[in-house]
């Protein structure tokens, strides 16, 4: 009887889904449905046991699929991976280190990033756009995200910069794609109309049910912002015919039942959604390892809701479930991840450069500034980030999710381990559970189409 080696077992990942079992061939991205007998057989082999006599048929099927190149595929790079040259393709402009909310979980110390409250001038912003256009090599599509603090507190500069960018991009034959991320307090109909006219994508922050939202997203006087923000988002979405806006929320230990918040959004008529776990070192909002079983249940609840609504003809989008298994991104893209520090940089109101928005103000992570460019220290940092890819990270090398997750968030790794090479484990486990849901949903879609 044929057998499967430990090496081969490491090239696949199988898991239970609501209607059976799925198997992912990690290196090729093939997905197969397997029956319970196959799952049990694989479990036995994984545990180092010998296959049963009854397993012969299963092993023969696995061998045949291997022959067809659908199973146990080899890694295309196998230690020969060299990340792309450091060419900038995206910039985050922290146009305002200040905020009109005091969200309790804010990583940016409610907008100030631990420093002084400041706004970016048009001159600094324009120099940043020039820097991006100059340092982006042959890249045609470039992204600029207006971030903060709260970018709408500096909306006049944001508007001027979009106009400036639209002029400059022509000279370079490039396309700038603008986004802003807002708490929606200052989102007036006029700004909404401007964003629509200028094709600026928008990320709208909202946390779901009124009591959940108001517990975290408060004004300086401690009053919740739910009512105002909800009205503003409704007003915004009513004008947003392009469909380039997403409502995103953060869940904490207080709303591990976040599926209810997503249902609340659906009741409000919000169609494109994302919900993320807050990342904190400690405190009452902090998620712990012991929460994982409940979170897993919650993601599956959400996946089933997603599927049900799709079948009923009332679909919605959920960012982490948007997985195209047939035409997803190429392998090189999956290995570069966010590109922080070498493809993506953030500019502070003063024109300083950092690897990404989360590193702003973190000791030792300043890379330089717009006036003098990247310092020698910045170049070293850039190289460290560039080399922080899945093949160089011990836990990612053996992780089944590596080509979807691409190595996790460096900022979280640094926060928890003071080492960008060591991913934040809880984040990994959440990514993995979300991915299993997403793969199941992608399979359901394919099955429905055929």
């Amino acid at each position, binding site marked *: 009887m044929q057998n499967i080696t430990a090496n081969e077992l490491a090239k696949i990942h199988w898991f239970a889904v609501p209607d059976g079992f799925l198997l992912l061939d990690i290196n*090729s991205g093939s997905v197969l*449905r397997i*029956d319970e007998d196959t799952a049990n057989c694989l479990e036995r082999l994984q545990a180092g046991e010998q296959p049963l006599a009854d397993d012969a048929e299963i092993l023969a099927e696995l061998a045949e699929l291997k022959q067809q190149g659908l199973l146990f595929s080899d890694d295309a790079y196998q230690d020969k991976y060299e990340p792309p040259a450091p060419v900038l393709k995206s910039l985050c402009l922290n146009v305002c280190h200040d905020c009109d909310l005091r969200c309790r979980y804010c990583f940016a110390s409610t907008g100030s990033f631990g420093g002084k409250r400041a706004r970016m001038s048009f001159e600094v912003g324009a120099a940043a756009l020039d820097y991006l256009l100059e340092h982006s090599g042959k890249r045609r599509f470039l992204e600029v995200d207006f971030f903060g603090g709260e970018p709408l507190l500096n909306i006049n500069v944001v508007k001027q910069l979009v106009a400036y960018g639209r002029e400059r991009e022509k000279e370079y034959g490039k396309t700038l794609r603008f986004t802003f991320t807002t708490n929606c307090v200052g989102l007036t109909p006029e700004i909404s109309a401007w964003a629509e006219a200028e094709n600026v994508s928008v*990320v709208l922050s909202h946390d779901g049910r009124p009591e959940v939202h108001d517990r975290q997203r408060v004004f300086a006087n401690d009053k919740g912002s739910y009512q105002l923000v909800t009205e503003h988002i409704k007003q915004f979405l009513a004008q947003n015919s392009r469909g380039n806006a997403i409502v995103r929320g953060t869940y904490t230990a207080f709303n591990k039942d976040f599926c209810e918040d997503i249902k609340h959004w659906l009741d409000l008529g919000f169609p494109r959604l994302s919900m993320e776990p807050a990342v904190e070192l400690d405190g009452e909002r902090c998620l712990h390892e012991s929460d994982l079983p409940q979170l897993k249940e919650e993601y599956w609840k959400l996946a089933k809701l997603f599927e049900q609504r799709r079948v009923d003809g009332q679909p919605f989008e959920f960012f982490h479930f948007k997985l195209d298994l047939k035409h*997803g991104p190429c392998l090189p893209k999956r290995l570069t991840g966010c590109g922080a520090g070498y493809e993506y940089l953030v500019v502070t109101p003063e024109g300083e450069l950092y690897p990404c928005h*989360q590193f702003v103000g973190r000791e030792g992570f300043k890379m330089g500034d717009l006036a003098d460019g990247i310092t020698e220290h910045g170049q070293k940092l850039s190289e460290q980030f560039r080399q922080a890819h899945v093949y160089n990270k011990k836990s990612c090398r053996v992780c089944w999710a590596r*080509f979807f997750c691409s190595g996790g*968030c460096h900022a979280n790794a640094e926060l928890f381990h003071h080492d960008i090479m060591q991913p934040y484990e809880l984040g990994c486990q959440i990514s993995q559970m979300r991915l299993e849901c997403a793969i199941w949903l992608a399979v359901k879609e394919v099955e429905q189409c055929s």
Partner: protein
Amino acid sequence: MKHIQVVISGKLQQTAKTGGCGSCQSSCQSACKTSCTVGNQACEK
């Protein structure tokens, strides 16, 4: 086959040669941003 059914036949390894143009969106994974899992990004080609 009795036990196994192929749903999606992937060819990810081949894209190591064909891909890498870098035109696609960058993808932050942190809670505070647009936060996309890389696997869900669209290819620009």
